[in-house]
């Protein structure tokens, strides 16, 4: 177990700058998830920590030692790969024992470690099987066992669940969460799936184009996204965005006008913005209410998705615009073709400035 500290980490491949000045602190025993769209550099960042890629600039510390120039085995990290990368010609036991044997451990120690790891992951009955005789979930567990057997200070996961089918993914997600709870070791986990990030993480790191967009707990990221990108990335279905013209602001908040919604008085501090600027209004699907259409502020329902416990209603502001989504408990009384008015829950509305940064709430600013 150990903490990890990244200071101004940079990575350049040829002419492409993949990781740009990343600062991050991962506490001892923390479960941190790197999340972002493909190409954002999350896997590269993980491989820099693992030692599979060399660091171009900056300092990487594990515990309190700088490990920039140490090979992976001396960093005390274990890694679980997306494709599992089990050694196909070795049994489960040999797969887990391989690293221990290379470390020249005594045979009894190797045996003890492997058996202990197998017990934790419920692999005891499979020790003599070859990887090809295992199911996807079992292979995944063996891959974790191999990484754990060497008792690394930090466990790294590179999209470990993306090769599994949906139901197994949920199950393995659960197992990883319980494993972290039991071992209490520091874990860094890379995924492009925000549901995995939300369910597993103590701390989520949202990456975009090689930069950290926001770091925070799942609750923080969901309730107070720092940018429009984070707001759109976290949460499913995604947040609705609408252009909103700033009409004015005072010490209680601001007034905006959004097409189809009319004038709204919001609690955000927009004093830094000029009047008439086009801001972005963000509302999560569960924070919209539908009402009977009246006047000109109405939307057409173009699709209704029934999911059993809840219903997604898709609305079209103008032909060709991105659809807005409303989410409510099932059953829903709305149907395709109806025209409805939208009432956003003003307490939970987000407002982003022209640079897509979230505007603070007045209340919070006063408290601080």
């Amino acid at each position, binding site marked *: 177990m150990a903490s990890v500290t990244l200071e101004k980490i940079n990575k350049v491949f040829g002419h492409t700058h993949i990781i740009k000045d990343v600062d991050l602190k991962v506490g001892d025993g923390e479960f941190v998830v790197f999340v972002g769209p493909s190409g954002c550099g999350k896997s590269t960042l993980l491989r820099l920590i693992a030692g599979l890629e060399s660091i171009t600039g900056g300092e990487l510390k594990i515990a309190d030692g700088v490990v920039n120039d140490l*090979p*992976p*085995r001396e960093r005390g*990290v274990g890694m679980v790969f*997306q*494709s599992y*990368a089990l050694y196909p010609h070795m049994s489960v036991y040999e797969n887990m024992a391989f690293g221990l044997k290379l*470390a020249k451990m005594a045979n009894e120690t190797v045996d003890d470690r492997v058996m202990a790891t197998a017990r934790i992951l419920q692999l005891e009955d499979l020790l003599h099987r070859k990887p090809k005789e295992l199911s996807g979930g079992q292979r995944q567990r063996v891959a974790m066992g*191999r990484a754990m057997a060497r008792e690394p200070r930090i466990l790294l996961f590179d999209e470990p669940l993306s090769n599994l089918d949906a139901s197994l993914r949920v199950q393995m997600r659960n197992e990883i969460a319980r494993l972290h709870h039991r071992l209490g070791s520091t874990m860094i986990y890379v995924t492009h799936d925000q549901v995995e990030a939300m369910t597993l993480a103590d701390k989520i790191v949202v990456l975009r184009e090689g930069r950290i967009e926001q770091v925070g707990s799942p609750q923080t990221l969901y309730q107070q996204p720092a940018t429009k990108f984070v707001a759109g990335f976290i949460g499913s279905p995604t947040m609705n965005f609408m252009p909103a013209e700033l009409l004015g602001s005072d010490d209680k908040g601001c007034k905006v006008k959004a097409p189809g919604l009319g004038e709204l008085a919001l609690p955000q501090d927009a004093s830094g913005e000029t009047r008439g600027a086009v801001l972005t209004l963000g509302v999560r699907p569960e924070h919209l209410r539908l009402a009977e259409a009246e006047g000109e502020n109405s939307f057409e329902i173009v699709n209704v998705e029934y999911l059993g416990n809840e219903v997604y209603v898709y609305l079209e502001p103008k032909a060709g615009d991105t659809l807005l989504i409303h989410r409510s408990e099932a059953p829903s009384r709305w149907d395709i073709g109806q025209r409805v008015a939208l009432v956003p829950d003003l307490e939970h509305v987000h407002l982003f400035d022209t640079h897509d940064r979230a505007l603070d709430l007045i209340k919070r600013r006063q408290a601080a």
Partner: protein
Amino acid sequence: MNQYQLIKLAKRVGLYALIAVVMVYAIFPFYYAVITSLKPSSELFRVDFWLSSLDFGNYVQIFTQKSFVRAIFNSILISFSVVIIALLLGITASYALGRVRFRGRTTVMLTILGVSMFPQVAVLSGLFEVIRALNLYNNPGGLILSYTIFTLPFTVWVLTTFMRQLPMELEEAAIMDGATPWVTITKVFLPLMWPAMATTGLLAFIAAWNEFLFALTFTLTDDQRTVPVAIALISGGSQHELPWGPIMAASVTVTVPLVVLVMIFQRRIVSGLTAGAVKG
């Protein structure tokens, strides 16, 4: 029987007829050699298509000849050495060419491919000087050296394409487990590369086993010759007599090990040869 069935039958008959032609074309020479080798010399020039007698005299004759037995031994020594050296160098080279990124990697690969296209005759005289300079003339070492030169490009090329197909994550997993490149090659890659190694090894073996030009040029005395040369130099009682019986017996004797080896490894050869074909 309607017309459709008739056409189907005709197609089938045609296919098997074609197969029969190819089989006869490929196998008949060897078959005739076997038959001839089992005939006593008195019946040698009577044309028979079936086994008419079972006379092992020719075989007894060649195996009692010391130089021929010695030639077989030389061929075995040389061929096995070539295979072992080529595979050892081929595996390590393919790791470098398939896995390590360095400037000029493609150039090296293309050079290797280019080298394998040189005709033997083109390098014969140059190689002769090299072998003389290294003091390997009339010595198995000279043949091992020259065969390895011609076997390596193919070996390296095939093993490199095969090595490239092994998933990158497998190597990274080994690195995370603390393996050095040598451990990765021997403990992780080698066990997975048996099909490719069997293919290239066998082809290298066949090439070394059958080679004639170098073997003739770089050896002088009977006790250093390899089988193909020894067979060519089997002579009869007089200048005007070619001893077909013993020649055929010798040919059959040296072909059988190859046939057996190919039979054993045939499935691997096929999978090894096609393995690099689809994904380059």
